[in-house]
């Protein structure tokens, strides 16, 4: 192994999306400068971003097979293992032939076979063949594959210092996200000359990643006619395109067809440049005034390092919101404006979109405020300090035994959000605490985010998530969903859990809009004879809440009572309990109520009898029944029960002593 790196061999792997390839390329460029004679090989998979970007950078590329972790489908899992295994064999072959000193993996499923193969080789040759493994994680949360790979790795470089705690101790270090130097060194004037765009123009550059972002493409295609009314505005639109044949969304074709339909004149417009794949990114980056981007860690860090103001549109996802987290991080630092993707459960739109007007307005208002833009771009450069490329290149050389171990730098820390990162279950829990006053109320910004999340849950195809969305909507007092919630409650097509939770949500949202009063009554009547018991008792429970806010007409009262009296003999005890309580809150006829309640005096479940006591109390309070009669009746009810509350005296004493002690401390 010599100083000039003649014998050094490096394997770079990782890919799938541009965000995994470009940090690797950035590091390669730096390494080539430092050890010009080194052998470098890139290992990726076919039909992905690396297939285009790597050969363009002049680096030899080899392919292995791999695929992302599948769902719980058995056959997909089998297929996954076969793919990974064949990829592993290919990787073994490449490794034994190339004999690298260091493997640098940017994660994603693409690098898994290579790392696994390296690990196995190390085990079976008892450490004789021992390539060092360095992994780079771009996001705040360690990916699944990287979590596994970290165990085999010698070191893991992270972009956010929070990630270090998830990595086996001693292996993690902060590097930041490597940005290609060519990108970082672009010149605005020269770039514009090259592109033939006048210097006075205001260039908006929208780029939703190498595979394209549907919401950005569609919104921009719709907003373009409006924006181009301003003669200064130039738009560069990178639609992205799928790499393989298999795809659900073809960015370029979709956008073109949309344009042909709505505004065909734009296709010939000089100021609207539309491309499927942009490979000279640095030129466009340098030339632009405002960027519209997704919030993958790669793109935001690239854009911030360049000091460009941006409009960030994070991808909305039911299961993870690291993009939203990244976007809000930059927004809080004052370097970007965040627009959220929306879905519209009321209208039944479940493909995320961005309001065209919102996009137009944000672009125009930013254009009108050059000072703000300048400030944003200044803030942007301050967000991600350090020189990630240097740190990583140093570390690679250290792993080869050439240079010393680089100093540890303090990383960028990531602000914790109250809502982000919570799963739907945790979110429900959190809101309960907010409503109970244990946590401070949500501010406007958090409410905006929350509603957005509820919409996403609600439009997902997962029934459990939909029903949970209803409960969360209730807890969040999300009134815009009110009509939809009523519809869910009274629907035959919805699943049982959804119907139940719709009633639960209704009890919170009932005051949202008085115009829907009649529909609510309809829903309750429907719910009282629902086939699912939990829906029946939640419907009965709702009557109480309803009565507190609205007056009942005589006709409605009779209809409700008729069903409630039928439910008093229901198979399910919870329905009986709630029916009794509901009857007590609306009944005006003494004789009828007593006659029906008598059926439950010896009910097997004591909770039903407990409800009877409460019901008589209510009836007396409402002056339907006189107290003497009520006492007589309560006397008849069976009072033996098989339930009691255990109360641990020691814990009671502990609690009281504790509260006394802490009070004394305050004084």
């Amino acid at each position, binding site marked *: 192994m010599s100083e000039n790196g003649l014998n050094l061999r490096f394997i770079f792997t990782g890919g799938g999306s541009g965000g995994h390839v470009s940090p690797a390329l950035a590091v390669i460029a730096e390494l080539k400068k430092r050890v010009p004679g080194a052998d470098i090989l890139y290992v990726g998979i076919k039909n992905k971003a690396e297939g285009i970007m790597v050969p363009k950078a002049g680096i030899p590329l080899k392919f292995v097979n791999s695929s992302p972790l599948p769902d719980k489908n058995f056959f997909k899992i089998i297929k996954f293992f076969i793919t990974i295994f064949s990829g592993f064999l290919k990787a073994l072959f490449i490794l034994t032939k190339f004999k690298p000193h260091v493997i640098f993996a940017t994660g994603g499923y693409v690098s898994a076979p290579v790392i696994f193969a390296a690990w196995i080789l190390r085990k079976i040759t008892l450490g004789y063949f021992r390539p060092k493994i360095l992994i780079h994680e771009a996001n705040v949360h360690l990916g699944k594959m990287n979590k596994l790979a970290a165990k085999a790795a010698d070191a893991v470089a992270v972009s956010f210092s929070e990630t270090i705690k998830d990595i086996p101790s001693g292996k993690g270090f902060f590097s930041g996200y490597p940005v290609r130097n060519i990108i970082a060194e672009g010149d605005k004037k020269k770039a514009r000359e090259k592109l033939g765009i006048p210097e006075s123009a205001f260039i908006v550059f929208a780029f939703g990643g190498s595979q394209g972002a549907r919401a950005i493409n569609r919104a921009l295609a719709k907003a373009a006619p409006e924006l181009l009314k301003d003669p200064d505005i130039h738009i560069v639109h990178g639609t992205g395109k799928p790499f393989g044949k298999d795809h659900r969304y073809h960015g370029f074709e979709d956008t073109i067809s949309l344009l042909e339909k709505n505004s065909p004149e734009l296709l010939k417009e000089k100021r609207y440049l539309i491309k499927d794949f942009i490979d000279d990114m640095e030129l466009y980056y340098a030339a632009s005034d405002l960027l519209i981007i997704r919030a993958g860690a790669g793109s935001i860090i690239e854009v911030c390092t360049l000091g460009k103001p941006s409009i960030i549109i994070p991808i909305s996802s039911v299961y993870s919101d690291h993009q939203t987290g990244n976007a809000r991080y930059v927004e809080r630092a004052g370097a970007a404006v965040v627009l959220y993707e929306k879905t519209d459960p009321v209208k039944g739109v479940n493909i995320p979109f961005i309001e065209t007007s919102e996009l137009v307005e944000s672009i125009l208002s930013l254009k009108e405020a050059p000072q703000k833009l300048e400030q944003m771009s200044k803030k942007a450069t301050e967000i991600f300090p350090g020189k990630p490329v240097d740190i990583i290149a140093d570390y690679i050389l250290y792993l080869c035994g050439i240079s010393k171990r680089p100093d540890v730098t303090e990383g960028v820390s990531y602000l914790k959000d109250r809502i982000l990162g919570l799963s739907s279950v945790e979110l429900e829990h959190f809101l309960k605490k907010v409503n109970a006053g244990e946590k401070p109320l949500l501010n406007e910004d958090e409410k905006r985010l929350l509603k957005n999340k509820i919409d996403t849950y609600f439009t997902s195809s997962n029934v459990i998530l939909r029903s949970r969305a209803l409960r969360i909507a209730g807890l969040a007092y999300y009134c815009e969903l009110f009509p939809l919630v009523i519809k869910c409650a009274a629907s035959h097509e919805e*699943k049982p*859990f959804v119907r139940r939770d719709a009633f639960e949500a209704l009890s919170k949202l009932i005051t949202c809009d008085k115009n829907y009063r009649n529909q609510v009554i309809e829903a309750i009547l429907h719910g009282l004879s629902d086939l699912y018991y939990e829906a029946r008792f939640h419907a009965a429970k709702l009557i109480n809440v309803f009565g507190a806010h609205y007056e009942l007409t005589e006709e409605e009262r009779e209809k409700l009572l008729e069903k409630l009296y039928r439910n008093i003999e229901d198979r399910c005890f919870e329905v009986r309990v709630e029916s009794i309580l509901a009857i007590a809150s609306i009944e005006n006829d003494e004789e009828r109520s007593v006659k029906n309640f008598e059926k439950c005096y010896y009910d097997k*479940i004591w*909770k039903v009898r407990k409800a009877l006591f409460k019901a008589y109390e209510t009836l007396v309070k409402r002056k339907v029944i006189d107290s003497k009669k009520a006492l007589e009746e309560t006397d008849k009810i069976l009072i033996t029960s098989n339930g009691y509350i255990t109360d*641990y005296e020691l*814990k009671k004493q*502990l609690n009281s002593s504790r509260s006394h002690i802490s009070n004394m401390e305050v004084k």
Partner: protein
Amino acid sequence: MFHYIFDIIKESGGPAVFGYITSRTLIAFVSSFFVTLIIGRPIIIQLYKKGFRSFERTYGDINSQSKKGTPVMGGILMFITGIGNAVLWCDLSNPFIIILIFSAIWFGVFGGIDDYLKIKNKNPDSGLSRGVKFSIQILFGVALAVFVLNTSISPLPPNIADGMQVPFYKGILFNSGFITFLWIVFIIVYSANAVNFADGMDGLAVVPSIFTFIVIGVFSYIIGNFVHAQHLLFHFIPGSGEIAVFCGAIVGSALGFLWFNSHPAEVFMGDMGSLFLGGTMGTAAVLIRQEIIFIIAGAIFAIEITSTFIQENLGFRNYRRILYRAPLHHHFHHQGMAESKIATRFWIISAIMAALAIITIKFR
């Protein structure tokens, strides 16, 4: 261990009574019960000190009505005394005993790891994942099945090893190695999980386990005794009588555990206890090839696991609840029935079913 001493006593002309299986079972039971009582409190206090305490899914202050803070992983108590006394009083050269002690260690240790992870991460969902738990059980089941079915190492006579036996029928229903293999794996997975599900209330899993072990002990004594087996029309399995001694040790330690675990509980068994009991129970039943008797005697476990299965697979798959809650004891609890009442009623059912299983001895 004492087995050898008893042998020496017998050979040198002393009384042979200590060497009998019956007397050793009784001694193992008594010794393991008292040892559990003696070491119970110090161990519980150590568990509490080390932070092995229960916590609830919903967080809050210490509630004087909740069981939060009770030491968990009390299974270690049964683990120590059960295995310890088995080693002391059983014939350690007996292949059945080797297998049983191995199963006890296997399930106890993995249950302990599961408990430890939960405590360490302060999250009841962060124990071993479902997949890992199932693979541990299946792995053991497969090993046991291979051991039983492989004629060169199996201590069971070949036609019994792969024969299906049912109550009330003196013969062997059919012989099939393949079906027996699957059946054994199923029984192991079933028994480990079933006890785990039943462990949700004070004393709810321990008492039915005791009854089941007694039944298995009685059967193994009969099957392992040539005269009794012939008289009662069982298929004689040489050496299986020793299982009764093992059962005696486990019953003693479980009873000792109940001393502390009875409502209101001072300690919970945790997964360490439930997997330990369930795993050894299933293994013992397989070794004497009386799995159906085991299912009857442990009917409570069958009920608990079936109710969970119904709720999750018939209910949640169709987005509805069928029972109020599952496993079944939560269903009753939701209706307002007090815990001690539910536990007692389950014990009664369990006793009746155990008696029923014993009765089948005479009707063949």
